[in-house]
């Protein structure tokens, strides 16, 4: 460990399927769960760290995201626009199922920035959409009685008038 700077250290992560990922320790810092594991280990972490709740597809996406963001942050001035564009593409490229899986993985690994971004993505889905749309998108079922639903709509009448049904 002595003599090697932090950014050069590589950490190995193992997904559920057994795939190994080599990650720079500077990136690993953003995976707070992993970082906590490293901090808790007295010895050097040489063997792969197992991630029993994370699949290859999700870890790959998360590392993609983190790598790109690190690149943007250390880059030139116009990074903000590029980052926003990358984020938008990133969100669009995923199906609802994939989004769900990614959120679970990001939550488990405690990746703060990505989680915030995913929260906002989910919020964007809910924003300005009809009740039916939100139900369909997230696969949620209506568990209200007709009376309960009517009561809810009446209590918040102002919100339910004039919204486009999509």
């Amino acid at each position, binding site marked *: 460990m002595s003599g090697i700077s932090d950014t050069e250290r590589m950490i190995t992560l193992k997904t559920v399927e057994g795939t190994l990922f080599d990650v720079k320790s500077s990136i690993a810092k953003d995976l707070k769960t992993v970082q906590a594991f490293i901090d808790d280990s007295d010895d050097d972490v040489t063997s792969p760290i197992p991630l029993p709740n994370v699949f290859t597809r999700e870890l790959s996406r998360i590392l993609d995201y983190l790598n790109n963001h690190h690149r943007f942050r250390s880059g030139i*001035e116009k990074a903000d626009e590029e980052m926003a564009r990358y984020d938008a593409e990133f969100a669009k490229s995923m199906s609802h199922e994939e989004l769900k899986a990614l959120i679970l993985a990001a939550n488990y690994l405690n990746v703060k920035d990505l989680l915030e971004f995913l929260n906002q993505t*989910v*919020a964007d889905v809910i924003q*300005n959409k009809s009740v039916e749309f939100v139900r369909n998108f997230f*696969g*949620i*079922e209506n568990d209200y009685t007709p009376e309960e639903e009517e009561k809810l709509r009446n209590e918040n009448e102002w*919100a339910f008038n004039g919204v486009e049904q999509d």
Partner: protein
Amino acid sequence: MDSLLHNNDNDDNHLDHVLHDFLALSDLPSLSLSLSLSLDRLVHSSASFSEADHLVDRAFTMGSILLEVAKHSYRNRASVHNSLTWPLPPDLSIKVFSLVDTSSLCHAAATCKLFRNWAKDPFCYSHIDLRTPVPKVNDALVATIIHRAGKTLRSLMLGVVPDATTSSGSCQPLSDTRRNCYSCGYKRSQKDSCHLTRCCLNPLNADGGALGALLRKLHLYNIGQMDSSSLVETLSVCPSLLDLEIVGLDVELGCILSSVSANCHLIERLAFAASTTGRNEILNIQTCSHLVAGCPHLTALSLRGIRIHDYKVRILVKGFQKLKYLDFSRSVSITGSFLRNLGNSNGGNFLEFLNLRDCMHLKEMEVAKLLTAIIAGNFKSLVHLDISNREGLGLRTDRQHTCYISSIMPVKEVLDTRPWMRLMVDYPSDRSNRDP
């Protein structure tokens, strides 16, 4: 006692078996016919007429009870399904809910019980967004939602915004006629009261301003009935305010700025877009000095569509040490001379964004001097400059000589020196002589 319980167990078992067998009947071919024939046989073999009636009544009763029971069971299962399907834990879900506007929150709550429970958490309401494209929100609703936020209240956005998804930076005040239609609501019945009055911010003032003290952000749009004294009263109980935006309100800017100077010392962003009737107010110089003294942390100042002279603007730009964002678009009397010898240690050197779009009295000469200063290295942080003008620059009194993009404005040279800069120079298409 034991035997009683034992009996109940037996009863339950028995009922379960009967129900199970009954439900298994649904596998029968021609179920409807079979059941009908079966019931007929029972009726015919009844001892009396009333017994037969009784039988049929029971069929109705059991039928409707079974229907209700099945629906209830379905709903319970739907609830379980929802809690398994939704990927986010409660704390993250509530966080997501806090990011959507209040209207969307109501829709979310109406999708299922899981969401409704989370939508009751005060944290969802810490950033209240009650902006609507047409008047829909009244004082009572504002009070209810603020009450739901309670101690988590951090920001409040309120009013009529024609396209509610516009970012606040580009929001324009509604034209006068439309606003007046909305504010003359006296013909509407009580039930239809869907307008905000001057009292809509009262919940913030209550209890010595307990809730106002928590507020960091306040944005108000096109609230026809809001007046200066009500707004000032609220500002006086909002010492933590960081971000204030006022668009299309019939209030006196001087009054508001004085209140901000006196009460909101932490403020970082101040945006004001005058209603069309507010154009004639003249800010006095003391107001500007007090604002500078009272709000040292201001980084973004936007005063659109006001009347202000250069020497007062200069006081503001030189005075706010941290100023990065300045927007005086659509303002009158401002010629641009305030920019002379700025952008260096004299003041204004942190400026990143400057918008002077559609300032009617902006002089071509002053803009040219600004551009030259930029080429020389002043305003080194400036990345966005908007000097567009829908009537062109120059002397308005002499239309024929209104210059469009003339040769004294070194636009190209600026872009050569600072290729990353966004320079907006939209002028109307040229009809008279134009220098190449």
